[in-house]
């Protein structure tokens, strides 16, 4: 198991364990040192955080330290953040009769249950994200996100699945009337203590809530609460209400960690996307030839 964490085989597992112990003792070394010392090929394997349910495990922790502040005294979320990780065992809850205690998914309306079942049946081959369309929130975006905070506007920049962005307006404005439905909706934010509360409406009904193909309607109302308890950690509470799709309320707790010593990479999804051809096969019959 331990060896599985590394991209190196020439060294035996026992030596790897010794190095892990040494590394733990030497845990005061900074991530910046790691980044600067990174080898040029093939040996810097890091365990991935879990994505949603199923990959479980305790969430990793980022480095501590004081939270940077904006000029108005509110927390500054600026930085590159790793992929979001739901908190195992307490990641998803929902309310409403028929809520699933095992998945945390609130009961779906019949149309939604059928859509989700169909998507599961063909093993999620028709995922728009595989065709390089945006996942759209609240789906966890793949790879890194960059947050850029100012007192009146917070930008969320996505490394994948498309180089898209979200804008959280913190200027006291309300959602415009007659919003045109979009993948990312319209986000207006305000502070509650050290927590940035982001209210988003105006979604289209194309994107999925998660990789399990849970749908949503244009009625989806998303509230995300961002909190940076220390330098290296970000907590995100996600609340979903969508009476057009679900009979109950959906709540998720997520965390992510700061990433230092790197820049976001270019990720042009359509550059060489060969997957749809294979996925269309699954769409046709989902069987081996």
């Amino acid at each position: 198991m331990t060896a599985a964490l590394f991209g190196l085989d020439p060294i035996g597992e026992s030596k790897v364990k010794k190095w892990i112990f040494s590394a733990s003792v030497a845990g005061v070394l900074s991530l910046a040192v790691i980044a600067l010392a990174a080898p040029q090929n093939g040996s810097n394997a890091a365990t991935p955080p879990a994505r949603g349910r199923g990959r479980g495990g305790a969430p990793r922790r980022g480095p501590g330290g004081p939270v940077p502040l904006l000029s108005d005294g509110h927390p500054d979320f600026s930085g590159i953040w790793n992929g979001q990780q739901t908190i195992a065992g307490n990641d998803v809850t929902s309310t409403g009769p028929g809520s699933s205690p095992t998945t945390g998914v609130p009961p779906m309306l019949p149309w939604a249950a059928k859509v989700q079942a169909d998507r599961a049946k063909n093993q999620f081959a028709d995922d728009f994200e595989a065709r390089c369309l945006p996942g759209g929130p609240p789906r966890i975006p793949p790879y890194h996100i960059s947050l850029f905070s100012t007192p009146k506007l917070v930008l969320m920049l996505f490394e994948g699945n498309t180089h898209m962005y979200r804008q959280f307006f913190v200027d006291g404005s309300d959602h415009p009337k007659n919003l045109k439905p979009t993948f990312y909706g319209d986000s207006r934010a305000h502070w509650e203590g050290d927590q940035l509360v982001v209210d988003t409406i105006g979604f289209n009904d194309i994107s999925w809530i998660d990789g399990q193909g849970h749908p949503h309607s244009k009625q989806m109302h998303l509230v995300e609460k961002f909190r940076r308890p220390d330098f290296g950690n970000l907590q995100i509470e996600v609340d979903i209400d969508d009476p057009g799709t679900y009979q109950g309320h959906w709540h998720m707790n997520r965390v992510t960690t700061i990433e230092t010593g790197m820049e976001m990479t270019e990720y042009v999804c359509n550059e060489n996307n060969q997957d749809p051809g294979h996925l269309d096969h699954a769409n046709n019959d989902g069987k081996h030839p």
Partner: protein
Amino acid sequence: MKKYAGVLIAALSLLGGAVPAMAHHSFAAEYDANKPVTITGTVTKVEWMNPHARFYVDVKTPDGKVTNWNFELGAIPVLLKQGWRKTSLKEGDQVTVEGSRAKDGSFSANARRVSLPDGRKVFAGSSAPNADQ
């Protein structure tokens, strides 16, 4: 010593952040985790591109025929975290690749682990269930 430094760095990286090896598509829709393949051959092309890096390997069968396999790696942000670089694989390299074959029967697979010419085995950013990371 250089090798050990690499392990130390890898171990230390456990203390920091990571980026998920999630793919932009469902693994199960495209690949069969129950159809493992191990292929040894010569790298003919490397595509350090999005949404997945890919490399192609010529494999000689016992009857002398040559088949060109197309291997999907993880996304570049994931590969960089695992220590891959654009130059990690080059045309002409002799490699052994372990992976999961595409369900459509084409000569393509999702690479899980690659044995490099210098003997190192590196993980491939696979999004397969329980894939090594």
